[in-house]
């Protein structure tokens, strides 16, 4: 069965890399459970699925990951997003709060985590996020940056 990571990496069951990936069922199943835990969690901490998918789309774009841009764009379209959430997904910065602060944080941590400091977390708190939301947002950002790297690595293996 093709999962989200195979799809992102463009792998099909007749690829050698597809089979090699199955040597580690812990990685295959684990990555899928992680994806669900940040994009379709049972308890969303007040961060709706549409917002999460929009941010994933934004981060896929920052990572220039065409397959994941297309995938998250398709997922977002069926969630009937508002104009504001669509703008967030497309990389806008002139957004209402708390989306403007969330967008700024997502961009910083995706592009240059080395620059992050305590002030960046304080800004999320000032924008109204509580601690569970700050952690849930951090895990979402971190997951998408994991996903783009695994997909990129697998794609390079397939073509190299």
């Amino acid at each position, binding site marked *: 069965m093709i999962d989200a990571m195979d799809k992102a990496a463009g792998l099909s069951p007749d690829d050698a890399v597809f089979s090699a990936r199955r040597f580690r069922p812990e990685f295959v199943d684990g990555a899928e*459970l992680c994806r669900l835990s940040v994009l379709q969690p049972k308890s969303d901490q007040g961060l709706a699925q549409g917002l999460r998918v929009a941010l994933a789309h934004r981060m896929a774009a*920052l990572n220039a*990951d065409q397959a994941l841009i297309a995938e998250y764009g398709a997922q977002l379209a069926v969630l009937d997003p508002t104009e504001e959430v669509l703008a967030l997904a497309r990389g806008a910065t002139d957004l209402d709060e708390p989306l403007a602060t969330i967008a700024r944080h997502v961009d910083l941590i995706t592009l240059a985590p*080395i620059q992050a400091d*305590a002030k960046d977390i304080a800004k999320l708190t000032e924008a109204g996020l509580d*601690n569970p939301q700050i*952690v*849930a947002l951090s895990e979402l950002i971190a997951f998408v940056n994991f996903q783009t790297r695994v997909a990129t*690595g697998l794609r390079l293996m397939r073509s*190299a």
Partner: protein
Amino acid sequence: MINSVRLKPLNWRPHIAPVEVSEATPEQLDAMKVTPSAKKVSEYVRTLVHDPESYVARTLLFNAIMYVEGGLARPDRELGALGASIVNGCKFCAVVHARRHAELTKSDYLVTALYLDKPETLAPRDVAIYRFARRLSATPSEATEEDIASLRSVGMDDIEIIDLIHAISIFGWANRLMHVLGHAESGK
């Protein structure tokens, strides 16, 4: 002239208040797998367990990637983690995984070479792994097919390369938690 670098461990302190064990929900307690020595649950775990669902899923995946039997040698996974942590600026993770590499190999050679910013003095296998780790960790990725060819040329098979991709990528994740949600302090 420094002949050998030994790094001291750092402590990690969160920017937000961690969950107090006495106030944790049943789901959070279950996620922390609280034992009678509950006071020993680290601040890191208590911070991340604000969102127990992602905490459990990520911890299981992290442990599989770093500790699963067979495939890529443990020090090579640590080197992948270290390369990512340096690019992402997670000092705490970099020190932990540099120390673990030195323990596993019983040698400070690699840590010394990287600390002195002389990666060119590394063995060819370590050069290939370290370079790939750095390039895959950039946003967007700067890794290329030549990097994969380099890994293959030093004898790595597809299963080892997949293990390495995961070790680097899971630090694209872990670094974005540890360096973002807290900071490193020198040990006492």
